[in-house]
């Protein structure tokens, strides 16, 4: 691996996880706010993640095993936000009303919205 390739590979790997984070964040926000812009943002973030993964696989001299790991991570990062979201909404479905009366009304209404959309 040349020095230049090493730095580029490292930056791509960091960008890969950062894109995963952006995707997760925007996915959640789009579920909360139900806004088209946020949904598109989440798709774009995941597209960026996939492009970065493809670049790592195609352009870097990493061994095949590591490239398989990146590809597998791609799939894992795709699934984590929706699976986690579904798990959380299901958990909260049976939740008693919030015990903080200062925000119970707020939370109740919002949780109801979340369950409807889940």
């Amino acid at each position, binding site marked *: 691996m040349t020095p230049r390739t090493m730095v580029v590979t490292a*930056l791509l790997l960091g960008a890969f996880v950062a894109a995963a984070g952006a995707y997760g964040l925007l996915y959640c926000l789009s579920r909360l706010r139900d806004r088209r812009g946020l949904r598109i943002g989440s798709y774009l973030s995941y597209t960026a993640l996939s492009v970065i993964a493809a670049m790592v696989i195609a352009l870097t001299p990493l061994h095949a095993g590591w490239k398989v790991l990146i590809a597998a991570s791609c799939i894992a990062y795709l699934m984590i936000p929706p699976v986690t979201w579904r798990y959380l909404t299901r958990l909260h479905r049976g939740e008693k009303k919030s015990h903080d009366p200062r925000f119970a009304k707020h939370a109740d209404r919002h949780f109801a919205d979340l369950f409807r959309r889940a």
Partner: protein
Amino acid sequence: MYRSQRLGLKYLTASTVMFGAMIVFGLLSSIYYIQPGFLLNIFNFSSAKIIHIDGLVIWLLMGFIGSVYWFVPQELEREVDGIGLAELLFWVFCAAVAVVVLVLIFVQYGAANQWSMWFINQGRKYVEAPRWAAVGIVVVAGVFAYNVIATTVKAGRTTGILTVLIADLIPLLVLYFDAFPQLTSMSQDLFWWWWLVHLWVEATWEVLIGCIMAWTLIHMVGASRRVVESWLYVQVALVLGTGILGLGHHYFWIGTPRYWFAIGGVFSAFEPLPLLGMVVHAVYDAGSRHLQAANRPAFFWTLAEAFGNFLGAGVFGFMMTLPQINMYSHGTQWTASHGHFAFWGAYGCGVIAVLYLALEKSRGCNGLDGRAWKWSFALLNLGILGMAGALLVAGIDQAFFERAVGGSTWNAYLAMQGRPWFIESMWARFVFGLVFAAGYALLVYDLLAIGKSQRAAVPQVTAAAGS
């Protein structure tokens, strides 16, 4: 307030003081890079750095201990067992820390003999404190574990969070015994040393902060115990599932077999996955409450914990974890960049969240808000971002020029230290360190002042832990 909670407040106060000491010696450490020959033979870089990194461990440990003493009596609705001894040991702990720091400042090092190991400096990173102090820490931690376990046993019941905490405290304590050995082989020394350091910060401490954050959510926003505990189990499983064998990413270059490349690389590549889950959970919780919470500083510091953990530990860690990259990034400022950001995100933010929560309750307030905490929040996070960014630039420069191009020789190292980007990065790190310090000063001001003018207009509503 329970006695244990008063003790918790004392520990959280001491933690804040140590946080400040860590910052002072961190700023000092950064000056050596930009002022050649600074305090040479008077107070060397190594002495400043030791107090900086050991201060990091102590302030976070005190924060964890204080948090647990704060939450446990509420959890079991009874006073903590053995609280008298714990109160005494708090002062012993503080005195011991003070003595160790004074010896590290005024004596600094000794001759190559056991006296130095026992009373001056053990010279192993993060656990430089002399052996007598390490014994003291074992005693304090042992009594702390006893307090938690005995209280639970005598209460005749437990909770999910407590069970996880107790299960975590035992390996956490046992791992600390690596602070004692003095193995001749550096390979063996580092092999076992990493059991302590990695299995603390990337395993047992993660579980510990998970428990503390679980309690924080319950008491801060009235989160359902069932939800919080279910989530805690999932996170603990994922964090330990990836973190324990992720230890292997420290075994690439210390003289251990090559199979650690595969084990360490693969498992540490999985480590960001649960952190993304935490981000999802944080956004869910925050969004479902429209970013509203009565205790706004605690709420936002809890959010910062999730994001900081993901960015500092996840993104910055993944960048350098594969052995092909780590070969060059290892032993450079790149590591320092990741380390600063990860520790802050994973642990620092969490302890500050508990500080605000404890203050709200102890001052009898019905929520907390203000302006100072927002500025402190902004400055501290901007400061850490700036420092991590500056160290990243310096580290990549080092990995490229000193290691990959230069062949990692003395001359390559020294030439690197004089490169313009490196020097500018060191100045930037210092400046952002000042920003961070300003944030800390505001934090202290706010912690002293916040809520004192507010008193509950109605009887205080406690967010009961529904089960």
